[in-house]
């Protein structure tokens, strides 16, 4: 298990990109929860607080054509991969203007234009699908890589194992990005998982296992970039663990009193957006630039919220379409 040292080599451009993504995620998550709180929306929502940097930095290391498979807790991944806010918001609100015409909803975001191919609600199931995306790229001789994003708890399910073994045997250009937030619903890592770092599992598949600090943009970006290079070079998959902490309950509204107060406040401190801003500002990104990034993101969110709220619900008749290629009788 290699631990890449945090390196200062991240370019100012990349730092800016990462901050923009992380800020957008953070504010979108906050805004969405506010709307759930005040009843403007009523949707099952899995908060991403604590995961902003992982998504921002990891997706910054990808191209738009690269493939992503993510999960119910996937807002951050989807935004970071580039799905336009308005389409995402509209889908979260179940509107016909959403990415999936309102049929999928927040747990099933798809947007092939930005490479977001599948969002699954079944723990671990996206991992074998990411292999298929990578296999397609490999057979076609494309340069695309595929990323499977999943949680620590997902590393205990069979699909994870089968997928990692197959990817290794076939040297698929795929990256297994485990966002280890220490919890699977109410279950701690230790209570459900027989290793303390998911990256340790890579040895069982003859592939590199890397653990990075999910709250440190450089750590994530560099580990991810290395995995991407390896995949593009035809050297096969990487299991990349990004360590963070789930700062909110599993699902919006859920109890999280079981999370030890000390752990939570330590994590909140480490995951503070102000700290991230400070860190970015030390990388030749000016205060003016930061403010502009923030204002643009805020505006994007407000525009998206308005779009989502104003958009129409799908017509009931729409149910007949997209079951098969041919529409079905009413």
């Amino acid at each position, binding site marked *: 298990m290699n631990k890449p040292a945090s390196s200062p080599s991240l370019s100012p451009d990349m730092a800016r990109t990462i901050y923009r993504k992380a800020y957008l995620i953070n504010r979108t998550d906050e805004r969405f929860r506010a709307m759930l709180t005040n009843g403007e929306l*009523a*949707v*099952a929502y899995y908060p991403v607080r604590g995961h902003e940097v992982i998504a921002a930095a990891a997706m910054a290391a990808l191209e738009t054509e690269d493939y992503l498979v993510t999960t119910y807790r996937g807002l951050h991944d989807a935004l970071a991969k580039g799905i336009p806010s308005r389409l995402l918001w509209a889908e979260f609100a*179940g*509107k*016909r203007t959403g990415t*999936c*015409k*309102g*049929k*999928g*909803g*927040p*747990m*099933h975001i798809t947007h092939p234009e930005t490479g977001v191919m599948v969002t*699954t*609600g*079944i*723990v*671990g199931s996206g991992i074998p699908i990411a292999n298929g995306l990578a296999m397609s790229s490999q057979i076609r001789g494309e340069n695309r890589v595929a990323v499977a994003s999943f949680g620590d*708890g*997902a590393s*205990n*399910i*069979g*699909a994870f194992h089968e997928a990692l073994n197959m990817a290794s045997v076939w040297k698929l250009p795929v990256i297994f990005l485990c966002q280890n937030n220490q919890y*699977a*619903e*109410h*279950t701690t890592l230790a*209570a*459900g*998982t027989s290793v303390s770092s998911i990256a340790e599992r890579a040895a069982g598949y003859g592939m590199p296992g890397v653990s990075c600090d999910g709250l440190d943009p450089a750590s994530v970006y560099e580990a991810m970039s290395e995995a991407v290079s390896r995949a593009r070079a035809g050297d096969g998959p990487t299991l990349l663990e990004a360590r963070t902490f789930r700062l909110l309950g599993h699902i919006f509204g859920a*109890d999280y009193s*079981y999370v030890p107060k000390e752990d939570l406040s330590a994590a909140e401190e480490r995951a503070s957006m102000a700290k991230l801003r400070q860190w970015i500002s030390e990388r030749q990104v000016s205060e003016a630039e930061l403010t502009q990034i923030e204002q643009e993101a805020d505006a994007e969110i407000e525009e998206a919220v308005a779009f989502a709220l104003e958009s129409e*619900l*799908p*017509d*009931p*008749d*729409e*149910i*007949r379409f997209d*079951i098969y290629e041919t529409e*079905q009788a009413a």
Partner: protein
Amino acid sequence: MSAEKMSFAQALNAALDDAMADDENVIMLGEDVADEQGGGVFKVSKGLSDKYGTKRVRSTPISEQAIIGAAVGAAITGMRPVAEIMLMNFITVAMDQLVNHAAKLRFMSGGQTNVPLVVRTTTGAGVGFGGQHSDMLEAWFAHVPGIKIATASNPADAYGLMRSAIDDEDPTILIENITHYGMTGPAAKPGYRVPLGKAAIVREGGDVTLITYGRGVGDCLKAAGQLADEGIEAEVIDLRTVSPWDEEAVLSSVAKTKRAVIVHEAVRPFGAGAEISSRIHEELFGELAGPVQRVASYPSPVPFAKPLETAFLYSVADIVHAAQQATEKKV
């Protein structure tokens, strides 16, 4: 158990509690079921690990094959595991253990081992959980010899079916409808049993028989109320157990009413209603006043957006309409 009213969740909790108190072979396992992990997502197992210990009430990793496999293994040693699969769609990753093993080990071993296993799971459309968290898959299991499948329509039955399923020497899947947990109803007496395979006539009537289970029962009762206003008296049968289902109760009611409507939440094609409809026609051909009607959900994945989810789910109006059709048709 002393309260006169009880919610579904409380009834299930009481049934598990009483069964664990009665028999130390009863154990529970599933994701987050122990109290340290919250006592279950719907609090059905709340308090039980505190009371009986985490050896007997075990929170598991996210590993449904391992959950059912462990339950099967324990069951063939004579334990009576109650395994929870958080949502019914997740049962798709554990089908091998249920279908190739739990259902068959008694037979394949020539009766040497049996699998007194209960699998609890929940599901249901209408709450915005979308395509991968809402499916009703009872017809699959009804098609598998060796396993039983049941679902309650009220808290007392939930208690009684759970107790019977735990008593039973063979594997049973119990579906809880996700919309039901908060529903209250008369409390079951401690020790109450609802026999597996026995239906309940929840409303008597002579004009048409509405056959259903789970959530459909409430809807059929509503429909029956509306039909009564039009002078149509519907008999409502709550199958409670989908397999083996109570042919005798159904056939004798339909022999009386000569008209039947089957109602379930699962999509219609190749659903459980098809078997019941076929059997009624096979047995009562010539006595029926019209074809057996089926009311079920629209054959699509469960959609997320509200208008689509509503279009997916059958409605009380559909039941009323089908019953009207059934009673109009004369031969």
